[in-house]
């Protein structure tokens, strides 16, 4: 049987404000338990929440960046349920009139094609506190520092058809909120959380299958694995005559599986109603315009600019623009050195090294000016690419700090003395009669061997292109 996967994502982006959505308590991460929970967050009697203007501005920025409708009159409602880390007995959220309506984003798939994913809505809400179950044997410990932290819940249409598409979409939203500066995107600290609604259906079927909601996914890698596991589980279940039940499932990364958390049969009755403590939030056209005027350059615009201004390939440009900090680093390099070379060195060297060492570009041991200086020496042929990589390693480890003085100290300057180069070439030709014969017979590939031998003699300091020319001239005449 041919199955089709259907995925929709709910992303909770923690908005990067100083204070909470309805109170003036701090949102800073990592404070001592309950030191950032004031009477509003604690749900004390007689409190009155007041909406933080920044959350409204940030939600409008998101709407503008995703071509979404803006709810110019949005309404906060109470979502009622009981849990110890929800002191009021309801979560203040939005339901019927969210601040962001229908929108869309474009994602790029692995084969280079693009796909538009619909956004159903995005609404403002407060986060709950944190329950710690393993500190005490008989109690759950409650920390309400997180209670009242502003969230933008971004709900997609069920438009994704594979785990890879879901990851591409999640990364796109991640990139957007980071560009907009409305969320730090830190998945480990829970500032950016993805829940996936996953179902399967037979290919060609128009109705959706019953979905399960997969929670607790705190990296893009886990998102892909959790969805793939869930798809397999549902297909196995259906092919063996079972049925999928609508439920919430928790992903366990250590076992790489999802397991049932709670059945939604009768639990999901949140009895939403408008919050009497809060008036509708009204956004004037003039406010929207001033927010639009202040929008930063977004990843797609930056991508187009890199391609037109610097003639970068789509793949390279896409890799460079995805993260705002990487893009800014790259631009700092490209403004001081050849942009095309800068792009190659970013994509093939810097990003690879950052991934390998698992560090963010903000903590890169090599700064943009150092990289630009290195690239300048390659561009003016002072050094070749191979030596360049060697110097980058030295900069990375901290062995070198200044490119020019390191080249001078270590004598890494490319040899341009034709006499010396000729001597190496002659020596290699004398020692490699077989290979020389093969070149004469037209086996060009052997040239690599000869150039390699000569590079060795030069201790890496010759110019490979120049060597190759000289070999051709001497062997083929």
């Amino acid at each position: 049987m041919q199955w089709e996967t259907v995925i929709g994502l709910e992303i909770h982006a923690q908005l990067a404000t100083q204070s909470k959505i309805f109170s003036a308590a701090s949102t800073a991460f990592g404070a001592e338990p309950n030191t950032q929970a004031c009477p509003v967050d604690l749900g004390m009697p007689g409190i009155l929440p007041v909406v933080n203007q920044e959350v409204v501005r940030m939600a409008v920025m998101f709407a503008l960046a995703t071509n979404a409708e803006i709810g110019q009159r949005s309404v906060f409602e109470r979502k009622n349920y009981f849990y110890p880390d929800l002191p009021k007995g309801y979560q203040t959220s939005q339901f019927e009139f969210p601040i962001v309506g229908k929108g869309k984003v474009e994602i790029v798939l692995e084969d280079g094609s693009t796909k538009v994913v619909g956004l159903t809505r995005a609404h403002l809400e407060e986060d709950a506190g944190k329950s710690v179950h393993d500190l005490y044997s008989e109690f759950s410990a409650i920390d309400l520092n997180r209670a009242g932290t502003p969230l933008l819940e971004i709900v997609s249409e069920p438009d994704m058809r594979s785990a890879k598409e879901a990851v591409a979409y999640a990364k796109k939203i991640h990139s957007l909120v980071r560009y907009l500066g409305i969320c730090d995107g830190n998945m480990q600290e829970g500032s950016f959380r993805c829940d996936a609604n996953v179902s399967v259906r037979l290919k060609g079927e128009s109705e959706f299958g019953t979905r399960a909601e997969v929670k607790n996914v705190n990296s893009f890698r886990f998102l892909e694995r959790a969805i793939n596991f869930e798809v397999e589980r549902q297909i196995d279940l259906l092919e063996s005559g079972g049925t999928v039940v609508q439920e919430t499932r928790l992903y366990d990364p250590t076992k790489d599986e999802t397991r049932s958390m709670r059945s939604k049969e009768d639990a999901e009755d949140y009895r939403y109603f408008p919050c009497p403590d809060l008036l509708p939030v009204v956004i004037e056209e003039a406010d929207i315009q001033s927010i639009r005027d202040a929008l930063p350059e977004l990843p797609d615009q930056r991508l187009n600019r890199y391609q037109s201004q610097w003639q970068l390939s789509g793949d390279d440009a896409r890799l460079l623009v995805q993260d705002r900090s990487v893009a800014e680093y790259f631009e700092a390099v490209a403004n001081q050195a050849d942009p095309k070379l800068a792009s190659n060195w970013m994509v093939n060297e810097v990003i690879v090294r950052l991934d390998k060492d698992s560090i963010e570009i903000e903590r890169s041991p090599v700064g943009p000016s150092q990289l630009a200086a290195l690239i300048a020496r390659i561009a003016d042929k002072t050094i070749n690419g191979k030596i360049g990589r060697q110097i980058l390693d030295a900069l990375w480890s901290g062995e070198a700090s200044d490119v020019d003085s390191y080249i001078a100290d270590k004598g890494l300057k490319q040899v341009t003395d034709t006499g010396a180069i000729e001597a190496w070439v002659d020596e290699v030709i004398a020692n490699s009669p077989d290979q020389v014969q093969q070149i004469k017979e037209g086996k060009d590939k052997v040239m690599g061997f000869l150039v390699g031998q000569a590079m060795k003699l030069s201790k890496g300091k010759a110019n490979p292109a120049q060597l190759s020319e000289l070999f051709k001239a001497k062997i083929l005449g």
Partner: protein
Amino acid sequence: MALSADDLHRAAKLARLNVAPQSQQAQLDALNAVMEMVSAMQSVDTSDVEPMAHPLFQSQVLREDVAVEPNQRDKYQASAPNTDAGYYLVPKVIE
């Protein structure tokens, strides 16, 4: 529309309330009296009336994003039944 005993139990469960068997009928009668009163309003045609989110015809005043709330944990925790190491302690709940 009259509420049944099942409706009452469902509402009570959602509100985490216990309804004693001997008071069930009285509760149901009281709730149904409220429902009846509300149902009178159902006869009004509201098809072209915008739903009202709040009885005041005003919009929300927004506050500036500044974190000025001091830490008064000890004061707030004084009224809690059980605290330790800064945490509120509650009966173990794992869903």
